[in-house]
C-alpha cells in the first residue's frame, strides 16, 4: 500500500471535513468584509464627523499583517471587549477586518469613478439620494470593482490557512495533525498544498468568468 493511499486517500474524510471548515470560515469572513468595507467606505465619503475615524480604521486594517491581526483579535479582544469567545469567531473576524479595509478602498475608487452625470440624471427624474445610491451608484460600482472583489476573496482563502494556528480545525490543521501522527509529511503536505492551489485557482477562474459575464451583460468590456 503506497503512502499516498494510506496517508491521503484513506484520510480523505478528515481532510474534507477540514476543507468544509475552510470554506465556511472564508464565506463568513467574505460576507463580513463586503458589509464592513461598504460601511467603512460610505462613512468615509459621507459622514463628515466620523471621517478621520474611518480613515484610521481602514489604514490600520490595511497596514497590519493578517497574522498579527489574527493574534491581536484572538488574544487581546476577549480581554478588551469580552468577545470573540471562540477561536472560530476570532478567525473570521480577523480575516474579515483585514479584507474590509482593502474593500473599503476598492469601493471608494469604484464610487468615485461613477460619472457625475449618472447621478444628476437620477436626481433629474426625481429620485431621492437613497434611490440614486441603491439603483445607480452601487450597481455601477459593483460592476467596475467586481474583479478586485474576486481577487480579495482569493486573498481571504489564502490567509485562512493561518487560522489553523489558533486551532480552528481547517484543512491546514487537519493536515498538520496527520503529519504529527505519522511523521511522514511528504504526501500529506503535498496533497494539501495541491488542494489549496486548486481551490484558489478554481475560485479565481470562476470568479473572473462570473465578473466578466456580468460586465458584458451590462455592456462593459471584459477584464
Amino acid at each position, binding site marked *: 500500500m503506497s503512502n499516498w493511499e494510506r496517508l491521503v486517500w484513506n484520510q480523505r474524510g478528515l481532510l474534507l471535513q477540514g476543507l468544509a471548515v475552510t470554506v465556511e470560515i472564508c464565506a463568513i469572513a467574505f460576507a463580513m468584509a463586503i458589509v464592513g468595507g461598504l460601511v467603512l467606505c460610505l462613512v468615509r465619503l459621507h459622514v463628515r464627523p466620523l471621517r478621520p475615524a474611518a480613515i484610521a480604521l481602514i489604514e490600520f486594517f490595511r497596514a*497590519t*499583517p493578517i497574522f*498579527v491581526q489574527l*493574534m*491581536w483579535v484572538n488574544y487581546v479582544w476577549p480581554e478588551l471587549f469580552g468577545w470573540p469567545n471562540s477561536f472560530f469567531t476570532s478567525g473570521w473576524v480577523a480575516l474579515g477586518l483585514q479584507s474590509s479595509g482593502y474593500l473599503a478602498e476598492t469601493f471608494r475608487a469604484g464610487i468615485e469613478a461613477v460619472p457625475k452625470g449618472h447621478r444628476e440624471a437620477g436626481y433629474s427624474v426625481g429620485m431621492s439620494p437613497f434611490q440614486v445610491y441603491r439603483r445607480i451608484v452601487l450597481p455601477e460600482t459593483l460592476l467596475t470593482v467586481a474583479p478586485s472583489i474576486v481577487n480579495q476573496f482569493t486573498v481571504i482563502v489564502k490567509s485562512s490557512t493561518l487560522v489553523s494556528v489558533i486551532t480552528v480545525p481547517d484543512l491546514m490543521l487537519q493536515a498538520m495533525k496527520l*503529519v504529527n501522527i505519522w511523521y511522514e509529511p*511528504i504526501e500529506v503536505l503535498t496533497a494539501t*498544498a495541491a488542494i489549496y492551489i486548486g481551490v484558489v485557482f478554481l475560485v479565481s477562474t470562476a470568479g473572473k468568468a462570473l465578473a466578466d459575464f456580468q460586465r458584458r451583460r451590462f455592456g462593459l468590456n471584459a477584464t
Partner: protein
Amino acid sequence: MSEALIDALNPALFWEYRLVLLRGLAFNAYVFFAAATVALVVGLAAALLRVNRAWPFRMLGTLHVEVFRNAPDYIMVIWVHFVLPLLLGKLIGQRIEFSPFVSAVIALGFVYSGYFAETFRAGIQSIPQGHLDAGRACGMGETAILWRIVLPQVVRRMLPEAVNQFVSLFKATTIVSLIAVPDLMYQVSMVTQQEMRPLPLYTGAAVTYFVVIYVVAGSVRGLSERWRNKIYA
C-alpha cells in the same frame, strides 16, 4: 474595560523588552531583503520565459506563475521547511535539513516571484515594438536590448505595483515565526509565555508593524513617485 484598555495601551512591558523585540524586527527585515532578492530574480526569469517565442518556455512560465500565485504563503513555508529537504535528500541520497531562515526565504521568495513575474511581464509587454526595432536597427544584440532598452523602462513602469508587492511580502514575513525564525512575532509570543500578559504585548506588536509598514511604505511610494516623474518629465 477601561482598566483593560489602559493595560493594552501601556507600553511599559513593551519597552522593558525593547532589545529582544528590536532584534526580532531586524530579523523581519533580513527575511524580507533575502526573500525580495529571490523573488525579483526568479520573477524576472519567469517573466522572460512567459514572453519567450517558443511555446514550451511560455507554458513553463505560465505554470510557475499559476502555481505560486495561487499558493497560500503559510502552506508553502511549511512545505518548503518539512517536505523539500526530504525530497532533495532522496534525490542526492543524503540527509539534508534547512534552517528555518533558509526555508522562509525560499518559500516567500518563490511565492512572491509569481506576483513579480506578472508585474514584469505586464511591463515588458507595454514596451512599444518600435523601441525594440530601433535597437535592432542600431545593431544591438537581444541581450543589450533587454538590459539597455526594455528593463530600464519596465522598472519605472512597474514601480508602483512592485512597491505594493514589497509591502505584501514584508507583511508575509510575520508568518515565518511559525517555523521558529526569531522574528518580532516569535519574540512577542515567547515574552507572552513568560509574562502571561498578551494584552499589551500583542497590541504593541500590531502597532509596531502598523507604524513601520505605514511610514516606510508611504515614504518609499513618495520617493519612487518623485524619481519616476523626474525621469519621465
